[in-house]
């Protein structure tokens, strides 16, 4: 395999430092081809020098200066392996041509519309800190964390624990922290954040403080909804505790007041409704509002999502209400469940090759795969209120319209996820007690974190 003359890690590749079963390793994940590679930390230190300006000789010299040189053959073998996996590019980044269509501009004056009546409280269990592969820090936040970490006992030195959020650029402004058995490096044994414990909430990076809020700009307002990926989100919907609080600062009225770090996703205009239809953003707003109002836990959420998908494909958003609910027949749902199950089995196999035995994500992947191997039928709701909240939160946040798929496809995907969570409630080994209560939470998190979501693209 030919090595690029001046190799550099492709900017799409995610490099993460993990301590798994006590062994330090760096995992390179290329989401473009779903390639997962494992390299040694020493190899990563060498690879960081491959910035697109150095050829093999210069990389040998750079490695020698860092005390990491193990011979040209060693370095060549590393680079050949990475080149074969397609994760290297040649030379320094070139300026990209302008996009054919401008991205929607961020409008700081846009008013905020939080999910009506919802208040959130974290249970302090730390399950979200054991779920996500990328806990993102700015360089300043990472610097602060390193200072705080001087008062912590960590299994890895904090000043070596950050990798670029993507690619190999050592000057990257966004960094991801190392994980220990799939947990954030700074998570302590009692489930609390070591940074928060020592220096308060502001010591944590912004995404951790903002979680689980999600912002979607629909051109009229910024919808604030909750990512339904954590059991606390569902527990808060069921019975908000006394210390529950709005998802974002209740004093904030506009996007500007949330600060520049608050990421906003834009609803496409027109909105893709189905392969053959598109609709206006105004119609989507009306559809979402009606759904949020109507879903009260008395309906079968899977039937609502499935029926709405069929209705939208046939007639668009006109008349698309919960009255359109139609439960999928077994032979309609099975291809979707099978595709999700196949994807889960594939991912579970890959994760098991490098994650440690106590890693939550590894166990979640195995649970989903086991639950969906020949899924039971019928799959009746075990927690209609939680499922209704799930759809309400997604609808309020226009989540089904911003994931790159037509709305109808997104609805079938969500109906499948609800059915899959029902299967998980009946079969397989829940990872933790709160997972047994709200299996939708780990399933939703796995869709993003464990790359299960592309299953929906494989279903016609």
């Amino acid at each position, binding site marked *: 395999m030919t090595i690029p003359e001046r190799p550099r890690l492709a900017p799409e590749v995610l490099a993460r430092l993990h301590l798994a079963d006590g062994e330090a390793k760096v995992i390179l994940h290329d989401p473009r081809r779903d390639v997962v590679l494992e390299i040694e930390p020493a190899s990563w230190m060498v690879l960081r020098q491959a910035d697109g300006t150095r050829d093999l000789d210069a990389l040998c010299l750079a490695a*020698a200066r860092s005390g990491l040189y193990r*011979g*040209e053959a060693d370095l060549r073998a590393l680079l050949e392996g990475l080149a074969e996996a397609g994760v290297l590019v040649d030379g320094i980044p070139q300026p990209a041509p302008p996009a054919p269509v401008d991205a929607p501009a961020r409008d700081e004056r846009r008013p905020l519309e939080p999910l009506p009546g919802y208040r959130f409280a974290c249970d302090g269990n730390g399950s979200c800190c054991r779920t996500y592969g990328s806990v993102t820090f700015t360089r300043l936040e990472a610097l602060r964390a390193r200072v705080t970490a001087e008062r912590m006992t960590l299994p890895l030195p904090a000043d070596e624990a950050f990798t670029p959020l993507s690619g190999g650029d050592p000057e990257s402004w966004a960094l991801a922290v190392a994980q220990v058995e799939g947990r954030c490096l700074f998570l302590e044994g009692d489930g609390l954040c070591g940074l928060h414990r020592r220096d308060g909430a502001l010591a944590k990076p912004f995404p951790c403080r903002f979680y689980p809020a999600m912002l979607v700009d629909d051109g009229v307002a910024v919808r604030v909804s909750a990512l339904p990926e954590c059991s606390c989100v569902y527990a808060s919907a069921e019975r908000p505790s006394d210390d529950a609080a709005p998802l974002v600062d209740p004093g904030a009225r506009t996007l500007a007041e949330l600060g520049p770090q608050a990421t906003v996703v834009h609803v496409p205009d027109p909105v893709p409704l189905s392969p053959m239809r598109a609709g206006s953003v105004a119609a989507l707003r009306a559809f979402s509002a009606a759904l949020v109002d109507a879903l009260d836990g008395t309906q079968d959420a899977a039937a609502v999502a499935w029926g709405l998908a069929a209705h939208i494909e046939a007639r668009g958003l006109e008349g698309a209400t919960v009255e359109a609910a139609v439960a999928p027949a077994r032979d309609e749902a099975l291809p979707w469940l099978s595709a999700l199950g196949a994807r889960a089995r594939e991912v579970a196999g890959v994760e098991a090759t490098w994650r440690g035995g106590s890693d939550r994500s590894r166990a979640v992947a195995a649970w989903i795969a086991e639950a969906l191997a020949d899924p039971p039928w019928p799959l009746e709701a075990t927690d209609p209120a939680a499922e209704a909240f799930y759809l309400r939160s997604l609808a309020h946040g226009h989540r089904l319209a911003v994931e790159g798929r037509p709305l109808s496809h997104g609805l079938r995907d969500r109906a499948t996820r609800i059915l899959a969570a029902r299967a998980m409630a009946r079969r397989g080994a829940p990872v933790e007690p709160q997972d047994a209560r709200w299996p939708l939470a780990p399933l939703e998190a796995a869709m993003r974190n464990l790359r299960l979501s592309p299953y929906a693209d494989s279903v016609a």
Partner: protein
Amino acid sequence: MRILLTPPAGRDEVDAAALALGWSLANVYPRRDGRPRQVVYATGEALITFVDDHRVDARYLVLSGHDPDALADAARETLPTLSEAAVLELAATDRVRALCWLGVVGATSPAATRVIEEALESDEAPVREAARFAAEALGWEGAS
């Protein structure tokens, strides 16, 4: 001082020796025009240059320092090397290559000198060419 490596030993073997003997990689000169590729290693008091000499199909080390003998001994213990005597034996079967390599090892024995002198008078052009290379190489810096 120059040490000729036994084929096919090359960069990988020298890298391994460098790691074992504590030589640090210091520089790499790529092959350019007539100049062979050279990889330079350093210790606290000596330089070791690995030369991948495409001109005479030879790979050798050039040791420089105020007392390279100990370094040479360590290199010979760690790497497969060809002595002057071994190169002279090669002359019986591969005269042209042996002549070039005699120059590389900085041959000093009367036998080697005789072989080179005879070759300079040879009727065969490649042999004369190789002998001229050897005579010139004997005068290179670090020949012995």
